[in-house]
């Protein structure tokens, strides 16, 4: 667990089940197009870069850097309302995609754009884990 943040379970679609099952094992998977090589986020079974349907899973390194962030001081989201202040961020993965996430494991005011981070996984209790990032 990372601090007081809630760990909501995702809605799992058939085509994203492998992704969420992997999170429960502490792995972050990415969709990669076998034809044009594009690494795709969010995961989907066709390539929005070239339109072809041959997409496979590759494991991400889990390393990246902060593309942008905000320290949330007020909100109305159940579970998060009481957790302020916390950090919502886009992390740019080494593989390219920018993913929405939280930065945990440090003072919210210490987060900066460009900060190196690595993935951490919080168990949802429903066969999946929520990926978050902490300073590397």
């Amino acid at each position: 667990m990372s601090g007081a943040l809630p760990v909501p379970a995702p809605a799992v679609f058939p085509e994203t089940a492998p992704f969420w099952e992997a999170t429960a094992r502490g792995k972050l998977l990415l969709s990669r197009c076998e034809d044009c090589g594009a690494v795709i986020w969010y995961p989907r079974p066709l390539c929005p870069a070239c339109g072809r349907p041959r997409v496979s899973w590759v494991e991400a390194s889990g390393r990246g850097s902060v593309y942008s962030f905000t320290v949330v001081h007020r909100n109305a989201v159940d579970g998060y309302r009481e957790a302020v202040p916390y950090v919502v961020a886009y992390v740019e993965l080494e593989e390219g995609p920018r993913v929405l996430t939280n930065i945990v494991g440090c003072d919210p005011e210490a987060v900066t754009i460009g900060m190196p981070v690595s993935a951490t996984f919080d168990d949802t209790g429903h066969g999946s884990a929520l990926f978050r990032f902490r300073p590397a």
Partner: protein
Amino acid sequence: MSIRGAAFIAGAFEHPRREIPDRSTYQIHAEVAAGALADAGLSVSDVDGYFCDSSAGFGPLSMVDYLGLHCTHVDSTETGGSSYVVHVGHAAEAIAAGKCRVALITMAGRPRSAATARRPPTEPSPDAVFEGLWGMSGAVTGYALAAQRHMHEFGTTSAQLAEVKVAASLHARHNPNAFLPKAVTVDEVLDSPMISSPLHRQDCCVVTDGGGAVVVVSPEVARQLERTTVKVLGHGETVKHAEAGRLDLTYTGAVVSGPRAFEEAGVTPSDVDYASIYDSFTITVIETLEDLGFCEKGEGGRFVLDGTLVAPAGRLPFNTDGGGLCNNHPSNRGGMTRIVEAVRQLRGEAHPAVQVPDCAIGVVHGTGGSIGTRMGSSTLLLGREDA
């Protein structure tokens, strides 16, 4: 086919109230429809085209029935707060193609009094699964992410963002219906509570009930009306999205919709006398001004200094009703009220204190969804040429 001159806005109406606990959303739709039709000198029986977003019931069907319309053209394109700017463009296209002659566009909502009429979908959208679990709080989180990145890349400051709110508040003083009618200073914006850094409370738009409507008609109908009409000169629309995970937070869909609208209208940003810019947040205005070509990318923060946006004397008077930041943001969607104020300006009917002298060309820009994920963008050029 161009829509330039193919259609005219003949009626415009903004609901005067900002908190409406005693009405259904559908009743508000009906009230603004009546208001806009009365403004045009038309009646419900004249309407043969109807446009609304997806929150008005079952697409367009519910309100067409409720209002007793008989339509040969309907459209419920949903692009969030930019929907109504899109609808004006689509209405002009439909009129140009002979599909209808009198198009009614309505919007309404009551986020201040009640949950919006929109029901949650039975299945989340595919993007929502990968964006909804980390405490994104409404729209402000996404716009805060954009503001932070814009500051990082271009040196934009919170004080520059605050200038947008200050200009809107100076205009709102003259609007008796404005939700926040008091002028504020840069320091007051910066001293307001931080909501989601770097955005303060006063960087955020108001939450209000209400609605608005416009009536778009053919040139033949427009010529028969006594009321001054406003010419539709050009329109552009797009959806800007995350590009499979390469979202760039520093620009908006206006980079696509803007040039198309200006080209169709045959005008340039330097020809614009008045700008209605969707102002969900102060950063929304900064990025949109850059993307529409009023200044270079990254220069928006410096562009708004020195009263650029303040009517009537600023270089680019904007949102003279007080905008979403101070006047009204009905249903958490600001596109309609941006159109209505542009029509007031081009008819010479804005408040005298903020009426732009000799106002001949107006631009309206609508934004929907979130700059932090995916957004609908639509630009409309309007001209002071009565039919």
